[in-house]
């Protein structure tokens, strides 16, 4: 019988009551007495020299409080980058200054030039129209390969070139890989683009800066996935405000998908301006602004080669990738195409030799950083596409080719040639489960039905692995992270037994307020309703690194387990005292402490009350109170894996692709709340189908965004999607965290795109369009039709 509470149960998401009834408190709902409104005047050109900014007419417009430009930010630091990558030759990456407001030059459409603060937003916008910016346009740098040729126009004049870094991994393997490819029985080569995406969280970014002159305290309310990270970056590197004088609050946040990890210029500008103008300053991004100022995702151009021996075992992989950084380095941008991408290039397979080369390039486009999956989708996409192509070239079944090369259960822990060690997995189990769920045996009959309707049906298979639970701090430190990646939890038991759990992770759709209490309640044997989760406020929670990289349950949940264990230990001491028994004999079960082998027991609430009203209490041994904090630093990543399989139908007359069936068989390790996990996979699959078929962030050669609104940027809608069949019954628990959990937030976005593209190529091949070996995403009707008729 399914459980109705604790780990493994699916209580409804308690936060949904407020979200669905309009009672959520988002950043834009925060209005502080006397607040003024900021509007950013942004560059309309991709690249240009600023000759002058005349704000005099604007400054005297009605309602204008203050207008700030780059010169007002002299003495203020630039927007920092949180990860330094070292290149193939041991040199540090090239790191340009990223001023809060454009200094001397504009480098992408949307680069902020001036901040106009007024009594109302419309007044600020009116005044912005009256600012005269004299710009000489420069040639925009758009094409990555051309950008790193000698003599190319530079995005940053003070850098040597537009090449941020040329990274090789594992550099020592380079020659051995070349050799293995040269001597291989078969080599499959594929060139592909991982399309640039706009994250598009439902809630656009918002920042409200507030300053209290009486105490010299700053508060920033912001739409962030990690308020402590923002406090550290903005306080230490941009504005020079020590942590105890800066509070960062990220209240209800309506989706992030990575784009709300980073510290953005607008946050620093609003905080800075609040002191300058003596009023709270609020900025709310419009959707149009979000398209040009939220960090974008993906944008890789890759050539991958897969070498196989005569027995079809993979012998080597070589990849050559150009990764677009955009105009500046966003917070974690350098790590995405490197450590979050190269390390996953082994996939689920035993390939012994791998070499990944990545050239990160500056262009006159909006900065690019992590987007759901971040680097891992790019790795999986190449690998799962090239394997499919190899199977086709060799005339073997794509599922069988995968099985032949899978790491087998008895090979774990498995050290890959790309520096990571997978702890557990059973990839045959997930692939078999997925094939069963899609009813692969019945495919031919369904394909015949499609054919009778004039449609082409294809079966698309992909198997993915990712590294979640980010991350062991000492390891990422060696790899260039300028931060630790532990997580924190404080379990504060109140006198009457209710509990507030403060977590450094942050919920922006993940359902933490529901899942975390399930863990703590299970450990204590008390009702989940007695436990509340507190997050998103640096003044309330211990320093934590926030939520991304499917890390919350694996790292944040583990911290919570550790803190709860400390609570149990102390509570047992109190119970032992109350029961006049030895601590070693105390058992905690169903919310009561009992003496083993007796009927003597004391209730949870009696113990907690004793902790705060310590009249009868072992004061000589332990302190009063019942509150514990733990910081958990994982010893390894977690490695969820799974099969993503679909059936698609192509309309040969128009090229339109319909996804008819979609199954996902994941191994997430242990699952806390299956319903929430289903939801996470559903959302990820929707985004994956979005990337594969619909979404495309495209620029023209002048650096103008062609897909700058929903008129041209295609978000997936319900009617673009089939019903999903999702399973997570294949479980190999993580071996190194206390819950045995792996993380599920990104899986869908990683496994889905190659499954869809493989399905479409399969459909075309079955119908005789064998000249089509690849179509770049998104597979719009026009592209599929052109490929068929090309």
């Amino acid at each position, binding site marked *: 019988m399914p459980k109705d509470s604790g780990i493994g149960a699916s209580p409804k998401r308690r936060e949904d009551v407020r979200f669905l009834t309009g009672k959520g408190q988002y950043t834009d709902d925060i209005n502080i007495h006397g607040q003024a409104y900021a509007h950013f005047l942004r560059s309309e050109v991709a690249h240009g020299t600023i000759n002058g900014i005349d704000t005099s007419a604007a400054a005297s417009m009605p309602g204008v409080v203050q207008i700030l430009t780059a010169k007002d930010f002299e003495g203020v630091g630039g927007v920092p980058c949180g990860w330094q990558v070292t290149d193939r030759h041991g040199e540090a990456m090239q790191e340009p200054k990223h001023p809060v407001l454009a200094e001397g030059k504009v480098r992408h459409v949307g680069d902020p030039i001036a901040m106009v603060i007024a009594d109302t937003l*419309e007044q600020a*916008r*009116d005044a912005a*129209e009256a600012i005269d910016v004299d710009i000489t346009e420069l040639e925009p740098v758009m094409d990555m390969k051309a950008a790193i040729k000698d003599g190319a126009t530079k995005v940053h004049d003070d850098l040597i070139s537009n090449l941020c870094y040329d990274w090789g991994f594992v550099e020592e393997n380079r020659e051995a890989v070349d050799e293995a490819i040269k001597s291989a029985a078969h080599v499959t080569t594929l060139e592909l683009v991982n399309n640039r995406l706009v994250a598009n969280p439902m809630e656009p970014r918002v920042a409200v800066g507030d300053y209290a002159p009486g105490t010299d305290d700053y508060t920033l309310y912001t739409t962030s996935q990690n308020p402590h990270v923002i406090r550290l970056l903005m306080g230490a590197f941009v504005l020079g405000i020590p942590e105890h004088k800066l509070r960062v609050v990220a209240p209800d946040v309506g989706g992030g998908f990575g784009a709300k990890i980073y510290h953005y210029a607008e946050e620093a500008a609003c905080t800075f301006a609040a002191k300058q103008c003596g009023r709270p300053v609020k900025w709310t991004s419009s959707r*149009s602004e979000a398209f040009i100022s939220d960090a974008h995702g993906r944008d890789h151009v890759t050539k991958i080669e897969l070498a196989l021996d005569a027995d079809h075992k993979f012998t080597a992989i070589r990849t050559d990738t150009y990764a677009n950084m955009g105009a500046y380095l966003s917070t974690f941008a350098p790590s995405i195409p490197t450590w979050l991408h190269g390390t996953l290039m082994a996939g689920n397979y035993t390939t012994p030799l791998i070499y990944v080369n990545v050239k990160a390039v500056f262009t006159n486009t909006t900065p690019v950083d992590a987007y759901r999956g971040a680097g891992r989708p790019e790795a999986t996409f190449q690998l799962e596409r090239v394997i499919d192509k190899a199977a086709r070239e060799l005339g073997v079944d794509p599922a069988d080719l995968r099985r032949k090369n899978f790491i087998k259960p008895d090979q774990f822990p498995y050290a890959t040639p790309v520096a990571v060690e997978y702890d557990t997995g059973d990839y045959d189990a997930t692939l078999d489960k997925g094939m069963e769920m899609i009813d692969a045996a019945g495919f031919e009959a369904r394909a015949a039905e499609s054919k009778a309707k004039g449609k082409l049906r294809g079966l698309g298979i992909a198997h993915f692995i990712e590294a979640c639970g980010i991350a062991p701090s000492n390891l990422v430190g060696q790899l260039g992270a300028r931060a630790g990646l532990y997580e924190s939890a404080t379990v504060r038991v109140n006198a009457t037994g209710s509990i507030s759990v403060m977590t450094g992770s942050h919920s922006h759709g993940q359902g933490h307020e529901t899942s975390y209490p399930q863990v703590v309640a299970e450990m204590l044997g008390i009702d989940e309703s007695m436990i509340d989760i507190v997050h998103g406020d640096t003044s309330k929670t211990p320093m934590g690194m926030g939520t991304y990289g499917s890390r919350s349950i694996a790292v944040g949940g583990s911290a919570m387990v550790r803190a709860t264990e400390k609570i149990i230990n102390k509570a047992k001491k109190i119970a032992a005292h109350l029961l006049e028994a030895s601590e070693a004999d105390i058992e905690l079960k169903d919310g009561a402490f009992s003496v083993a082998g007796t009927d003597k027991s004391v209730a949870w609430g009696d113990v907690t009350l004793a902790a705060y009203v310590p009249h009868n209490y072992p004061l000589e041994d332990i302190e009063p109170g019942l509150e514990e904090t733990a910081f958990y630093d994982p010893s390894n990543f977690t490695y969820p894996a799974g099969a993503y399989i679909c059936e698609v139908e192509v309309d040969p*007359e*128009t*090229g*339109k692709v319909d996804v008819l069936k979609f199954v996902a068989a994941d191994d997430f390790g242990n699952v806390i709340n299956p319903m929430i996990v289903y939801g996470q996979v559903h959302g990820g699959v929707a985004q994956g189908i979005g990337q594969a078929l*619909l979404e*495309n962030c*495209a620029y023209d050669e002048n650096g103008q965004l*062609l*897909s700058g609104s*929903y*008129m*041209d*940027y*295609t*978000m997936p809608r319900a009617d673009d999607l089939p019903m999903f069949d999702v399973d997570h019954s294949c479980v190999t628990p993580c071996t190194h965290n206390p819950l045995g959990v792996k993380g599920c937030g990104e899986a869908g976005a990683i496994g889905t795109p190659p499954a869809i593209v493989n399905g479409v190529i399969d459909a075309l091949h079955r119908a005789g369009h064998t000249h089509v070996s690849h179509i770049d995403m998104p597979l*719009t*009707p*026009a592209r599929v*039709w*052109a490929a068929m008729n090309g």
Partner: protein
Amino acid sequence: MHNFEFVKPGTISDAVAALGGEEAQALGGGQTLLPTMKQRLAAPTTLVSLSGVGEMVGVCTNDAGEICIGGATTHAQVQAETASSYPGLSGLAGQIGDPAVRNRGTIGGSLANNDPAACYPSAALGSGATIVTNTREIAADDYFQGMFTTALDEGEIVTEVRFPVPMAANYQKFVQPASRFALTGVFVAKYASGVRVAVTGASENGVFRWSEAEAALSSSFTADAVKDLSVPADGMIGDLHGTPDYRAHLVKVMTGRAVTAAQ
């Protein structure tokens, strides 16, 4: 959005008078105009709402058997009220945007705007409709004059559109994936006098009649009749969502499908 005055007259003559003011602009359902104003790309000083002009709202049939639709009638109302009298037109109205758009947007606004990817222009041209304004009657063949361009003069408003009812008609819309306007839409209508085929979404000159297909379909109203025809890609729109070649191809595919569906 800039500040503006708002007036809501109750008669055509009051509306026309109000539109005589400096930088006054008609407001239908606002589904095109309001987003444009929010983007600060339009800044009329006065908006003259037509939704209160009773004589411009509603659907009826005149003595000639034509369906007469008031210029301020919403897409939803057209969809509902022509469902049995002119199913081809009703079907088209039901494919415009989403329910919110259909409950606000009006036929007059759509025809006045003449977006090259809008649906209604193909129905008006494909039906040989008459566009009635406060001053005159304009044949659809003379009304559409290229992308976002019509025969309307400054301050002239579409008060009514009269559709002769065909024996069979159908609209096939291949949607632009993001906006879900027509990437290419084809309206086919069969009259005793012959077949009309109007294409929207495809051409750089806005809605147009595909005369070759009209001739072929007038002799044989079957999808097969257009099978061997082709539309030149020259002058077709090329953008993120489709090349001129692709659109030219879709014109033929959608025409064939419209004919089949109209049977």
